[in-house]
């Protein structure tokens, strides 16, 4: 994978061309020292970004590398060991077709893995407040406890569909959208989260995913068939065992292809069925539109015939990304609300009582962190672990920053309580293998850490947290 540079170097704010989508320049002079942050660096979901926001993937990418390695090695062996023989003995079209398939497979794989699947940006604080108000009016109460799941009913083409409210994103999910717990995003037309491609499969990358598995099926069958042909042709001359000795790589290829064929061809078939009936994997598994649910149950999104459904899914217009990863964060535009299921998310047990008690004290501190200019010395911290990210104005417990483990050596002013913080694991850290911890990741990533806008400000907040915990201990 590409090893990328650190966050953009500080540069003078310049007057950019004004358009409705791009940012306006910061007018106030004191902000000129602050480097402009791109929106991907402030993204609240659990995604990883590369190439300064151009590439977007899920947090766990280990299996994606496995997929890539399997494809590269098998194809590489095929082109190196089998193609010379086959192109001479049969036709040179074999490596050509194989090459085309291989390029197509890789292209669609990268496109599926690196693009935005159709993530819905979280609600701005104003929107969230407006929705809350409407819901309170509807419910007739405004109690502090978490109310029962909120739903809205909509009639789509004659079918009643329930729209669920997403507590994390603070929106009513559009029909067919779903919240991916691995990526912590609502995704439009959510199909499934595929670890093999290291990303969710949703509205914007479903066609690439389908092309990927389809072309991979063809490639696997192609390689399988021609490796067998190669071995058979050689066996005619030299005998079977000698043939195998001459081309040991073929054995490996056959094994890989044999096991892959069943799963990949099966998956292609399944998705062909889904596309022709215009359903998502999610809907199919739940049986949302199955006739078993009721006589009148039908899929309101289907266009009626298979051909139109296929065309719509594969050749229809491709909506652009809604999250504008490479845009600049505006200081005056409302930032999406950070996830408020903050306290309950932190899995470690011994710390929960501390944090639950500490946070009311914490929240009384006004957070003016966003206005602090980042000191040059501190921004260099962002290099290996560019973890501290803005997440709206809401203060979070200091223990929520998982980049503590790597910052420890770099912030000499850290007080003793930082040691205690090591025990506090966030769910982002806990399930991931050691190699996936923020320090282990390549440069330039952004992690979904509920942390502070600026690593430099952590010190002042740590002091506050010390005060807070001291108060607790005195009780």
């Amino acid at each position, binding site marked *: 994978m590409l090893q990328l540079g650190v966050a953009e170097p500080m540069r003078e704010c310049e007057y950019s061309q004004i358009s409705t989508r791009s940012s306006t320049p910061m007018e106030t002079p004191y902000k000129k020292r602050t480097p402009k942050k791109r929106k991907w660096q402030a993204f609240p979901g659990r995604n990883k970004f590369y190439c300064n926001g151009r590439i977007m993937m899920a947090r766990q990418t280990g299996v994606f590398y496995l997929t890539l390695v399997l494809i590269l090695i098998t194809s590489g062996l095929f082109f190196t060991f089998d193609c010379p023989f086959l192109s001479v003995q049969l036709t040179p079209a074999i490596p050509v077709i194989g090459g085309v398939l291989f390029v197509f497979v890789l292209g669609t794989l990268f496109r599926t893995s690196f693009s935005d699947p159709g993530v819905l940006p979280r609600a701005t604080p104003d929107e969230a407040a407006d929705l809350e108000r409407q819901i309170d009016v509807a419910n007739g109460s405004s109690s502090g406890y978490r109310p029962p799941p909120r739903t809205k009913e909509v009639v*789509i083409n004659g079918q009643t569909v329930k729209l669920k409210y997403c507590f994390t994103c603070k929106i009513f999910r559009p029909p067919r959208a779903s919240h991916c717990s691995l990526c912590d995003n609502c995704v439009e037309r959510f199909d499934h989260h595929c670890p093999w491609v290291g990303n969710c499969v949703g509205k914007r990358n479903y066609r690439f995913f389908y092309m990927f598995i389809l072309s991979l099926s063809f490639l696997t069958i192609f390689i399988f068939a021609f490796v067998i042909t190669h071995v058979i042709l050689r066996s005619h001359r030299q005998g079977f065992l000698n043939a195998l000795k001459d081309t040991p790589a073929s054995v490996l290829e056959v094994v890989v292809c044999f096991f892959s064929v069943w799963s990949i061809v099966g998956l292609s078939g399944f998705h062909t069925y889904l596309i022709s009936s215009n359903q998502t994997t999610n809907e199919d598994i739940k049986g949302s539109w199955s006739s078993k649910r009721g006589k009148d149950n039908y899929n309101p999104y289907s266009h009626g015939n298979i051909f139109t459904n296929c065309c719509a899914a594969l050749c*229809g217009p491709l909506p652009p990304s809604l999250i504008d990863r490479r845009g600049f964060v505006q200081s005056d535009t409302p930032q999406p609300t950070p996830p408020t299921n903050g306290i309950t998310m932190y899995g470690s047990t011994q710390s929960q009582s501390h944090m639950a008690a500490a946070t009311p004290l914490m929240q009384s501190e006004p957070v003016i962190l966003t206005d602090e200019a980042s000191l040059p010395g501190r921004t260099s911290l962002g290099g290996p672990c560019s973890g501290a990210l803005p997440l709206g104005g809401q203060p979070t417990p200091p223990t929520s920053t998982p980049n503590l483990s790597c910052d420890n050596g770099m912030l000499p002013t850290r007080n003793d309580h930082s040691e205690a913080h090591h025990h506090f694991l966030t769910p982002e850290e806990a399930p991931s293998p050691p190699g996936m911890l923020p320090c282990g990741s390549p440069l330039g990533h952004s992690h979904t850490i509920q942390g502070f806008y600026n690593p430099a400000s952590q010190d002042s907040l740590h002091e506050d947290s010390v005060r807070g915990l001291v108060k607790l201990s005195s009780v």
Partner: protein
Amino acid sequence: MSTEFHNLQELRHSVSVATKVFIQRDYSQGTTCRFQTKFPSELDSRIERTLLEDTVKTLNSYYAEAEKMGGQSYMEGCLACATAYLIFLCMETRYEKMLKKISGYIQEQNEKIYAPRGLLLTDPIERGMRVIEVSVFEDRGSSGSSHSSSVSSGGISQR
């Protein structure tokens, strides 16, 4: 044109936003992008019903055209697939072209109709295509924008 819009941006700083009204999506026809044409009651005193409804209907028609599945979009899809989607490095998709047109339309509507009434429409793309945000401004007396020397600064005055 751009300086006038710049004034609208500064307007945000100099006057206070009293409230924001959200026009939600209308999902009755599926997942295609449509906004409710129902007139929000909070805007009754600020703008004529027909003007806002016309704006929303025009926006709906633009979005419908962007998402229309016809010959042109299929051809674009097939061509893109044939070129391994590399063609999008040089060419804009039809959807993106329509979105630019929509931005221009909203800008124009803001200047002509909404800003004179102390309202501001936000392009839905900036809100994840969920809502059309209508910001209702309260004039804070004569502290209007005085930053730039644009001609239209007088046009933003509250009626």
